[in-house]
């Protein structure tokens, strides 16, 4: 039987990269993401019983990360400007042919929920039910967000390719 501290340690070790990437995908900042990782694990320790006993502990962590990252973004109030800059830079990148990098930048311009869903599914490999737990919505809604996000990326990629070859 593992102690609470052992369970906590295991959870942190298995999720710290995911939490970092998720925070970075929302805030767009490495420094802020590192800061959020610290805050999250401190909060998790304080609420360790609730987290460790939840059905999907890592989904619980992702939800906390999302809320914290959004709070910080709201305080910063410059997320729109960042998204606009990414789109412009992305168009230039597509012309020079780095489609994978352009895809990453397109994902960064998605609405927050779609960005979160595509990140958790396609990068982290989470199950739909876990993502639904993070977003506190139905699995069917997650599939809709996922489909919209993927189709948006596909359409923008195809547009960029047509623009580059025109």
């Amino acid at each position, binding site marked *: 039987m593992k102690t609470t501290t052992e369970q906590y340690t295991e959870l942190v070790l298995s999720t710290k*990269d995911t939490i970092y990437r998720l925070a970075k995908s929302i805030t767009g900042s490495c420094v802020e993401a590192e800061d959020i990782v610290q805050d999250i694990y401190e909060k998790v320790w304080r609420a360790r019983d609730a987290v460790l006993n939840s059905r999907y502990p890592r989904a619980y962590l992702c939800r906390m990360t999302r809320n914290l990252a959004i709070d910080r973004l709201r305080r910063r109030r410059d997320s729109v400007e960042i998204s606009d800059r990414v789109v412009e830079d992305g168009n230039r990148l597509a012309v020079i042919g780095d489609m994978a990098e352009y895809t990453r930048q397109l994902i960064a311009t998605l609405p927050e929920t779609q960005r979160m869903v595509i990140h958790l599914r396609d990068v982290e490999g989470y199950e739909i039910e876990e993502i639904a737990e993070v977003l506190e919505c139905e699995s069917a809604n997650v599939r809709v967000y996922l489909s919209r996000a993927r189709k948006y990326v596909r359409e923008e990629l195809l547009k960029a*390719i047509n623009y580059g070859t025109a």
Partner: protein
Amino acid sequence: MEQHRIRELLDLYFEGETTTLQEQELKHLFSTAESIPADLMPYKAMFAAFERSKEDVPKQGAIVKSPRIAYRVALRAISSIAACLLLGVFIWLGAKSDKQDIVCYIDGVEITDSDRAMAEAQRLMGEVNEDIALAMTTIENLF
């Protein structure tokens, strides 16, 4: 054959209907297929982007090196230890004083019940232990 399977899976993928296993198969097909037709290249790029994103991890030691968490935990631990010491002094003074009915003061309120004073001391000690455990777990063991 491979191309046919890729197209079949992509149709499901863009509808959000693929399972994780099917998505793994798709990634595998894109990374191992001998030749990918031009019209499928954007999709290969998408999957390459997801793989590239996975490599994005915090710099080694970046979280430990940030002084904020260590500072906050240390400050809390020191505050709790100081509160315990102060409470101990009050209890000792209370026992020595002529007013034997006052054991100590908590938040400016006279406490005459020694059991309550002891419970408060134990609660503070519990907080200290918790903070120290957090500090040790977070800083030494994890990163």
